[in-house]
């Protein structure tokens, strides 16, 4: 399972970097979104995968008995997802404004307008 996830994460990172390097504003945004997905999956995988274990220990037990899932990575990922939701929403609004300013999807136009000022 780790191998499959590792490949998926690799593909996600690669596509994110590819999209970030494009000149299109929209592709930049999609790249940023993919980057955060890849990161979340990485946290999930790196902190250990376990199948079917409950994330809690029974009240009687004093030590870990049997397989148990670590609840912390999920909490971290949840936090990261919420943060990336906010950031991506902001980036969308910003790029809509940029589009209105330069009326183009081309990021290279950004530098042109700046120099011609």
């Amino acid at each position, binding site marked *: 399972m780790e191998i499959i996830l590792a490949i998926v994460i690799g593909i996600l990172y690669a596509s994110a970097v590819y999209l970030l390097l494009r000149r299109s504003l929209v592709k930049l945004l999609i790249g940023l979104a993919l*980057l955060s997905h890849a*990161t979340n999956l990485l*946290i999930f995988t790196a*902190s250990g995968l376990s199948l079917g274990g409950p994330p809690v220990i029974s009240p009687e037990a004093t030590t870990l008995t049997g397989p148990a899932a670590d609840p912390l990575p999920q909490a971290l990922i949840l936090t990261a997802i919420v943060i990336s939701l906010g950031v991506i929403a*902001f980036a969308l609004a*910003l790029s809509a*404004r940029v589009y209105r*300013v330069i009326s183009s999807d081309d990021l290279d136009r950004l530098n042109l307008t700046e120099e011609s000022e």
Partner: protein
Amino acid sequence: MSQSGFLLIAPLLVPILTAIAGLFGLAILERDLPASRRLQRLIATVGASVLLVAVLALFLQVRVNGIQVVQVGSWPMPFGITLVADLFSAIMLVVSGLIGFAVHLYALASINKEREAIGYYPLYFVLLLGVNGAFLTGDMFNLYVWFEVMLMSSFVLMALGTDKGQTIGSIKYVTLNLISSAIFLSALGLLYGLIGTLNMADMAVKFGEVRADPEATGLINAVAAMFLIAFGIKAAVFPLFFWLPDSYYAPPPAVSAVFAGLLTKVGVYALIRVFTLIFPLGSGPFQTILLWVAGLTMLTGVLGAVAQNEVRRILSFHIISQIGYMIMGLALFTPLAISGAVFYIFHHVVVKTNLFLVAGAMERAGKSGDLYKIGSLYKRMPLLAVLFLIPALSLAGLPPLSGFFAKLSLLQGGFAVDQFWLVGVALFVSFLTLFSMTKIWNLGFWKPDPAEEVEGQPEPVSIKTRWAAWYLPMILLALVTLAIGFGAGQFFPIAVDAGQQLIDPSGYIEAVFRSAE
């Protein structure tokens, strides 16, 4: 100290309560803008003053009683979030409180009504909340969250308004910071997988055990490199600084002053914290890398500044070169050099913020930031000229101003470990800094105003009441610069103690573990 750690939480509570109060004012008085504006200004001024008092109280507490720790929510240490204030954190908090207060005064005079109506003040306090949180937290993931709090508000502060250059500057800033956050988070995930803890003190201990395992070396170095890149982007070190000059010169002066003063320094803080506590330099390749980074950052920053003609662009490039000095203190990794870095950060934040405030006033008086379009400001505003000269000469490191002692201790640190070429670069850069400052002085203050030839002699700008709010924060910060320069004998020992705590983190670790009992 009480068990509740009230003083430790105050630097976070004050800004968030101020922001909430401001937002309430904004939401309730939606239809009555002038009243809402007055209320906002009042709330924010009270908040900024209380924050300054709170951080000073915390600093005294830390100075007298040692490292302060509180477990938020009473969850014991490796599981819950820990807030830790050692001397370094406390010094950084004092800087943040001071800058928060001074820039707020300046904003009262210079921020336009549209920005105030959209909620400039609450956003400003959320920014301070993020900065203070990053300085206080003892938990790696929590550091990420505070970074994001800070970034989100800085994004909005930067993008507010309709200026074209500002929009373009923000897209670079947003993208670069999102990438840096993603790298930081990936590093965190790998780190958690490696040692299973997020508490910084716990990490330091567990790392000691893992480092003995030769198989883990590759992963440890990879994670450390990722932290270096993530924080390096935020701190704007070579070669990751290119976003900074474009973004920092665009927003209104009050916003760019607080960005210039505080935001990159949070990155430097994180670098120093991580590379003293979790991955102590001295072993591994990172010391050499950081030494190179320091030298090249200093050099490229100052050379970039030489080519610029706009006041705030020149100053933005100087931020980069100054970051190099701080990284140099970290990279030399001797008690003297780290103390020098701590002193340097304090001096730099005060001076650089002040210079941005002065630049804002110059742009307003001359109606342009381009040095070839303004002039004769010395004749028109002698007080502003003096207020420019103090931080400018301090930035270049002329004795007896604060910059001299900061640079002196770094150079001594460099000589002590035979890093002569780095010392040479530092001296050369400080010479070029003086050249840049002289350029602003000659072209902005002494050269006759080019407009004069067309319109005749301009009127001297009188100091009316509304200018008082512009001058007050500059005078305050200039006085601080003079105080830490002339009183270096009193202030430097504090930096030395802070450096001692950083280079030998056992006190930090012990304090965190003791509080969990």
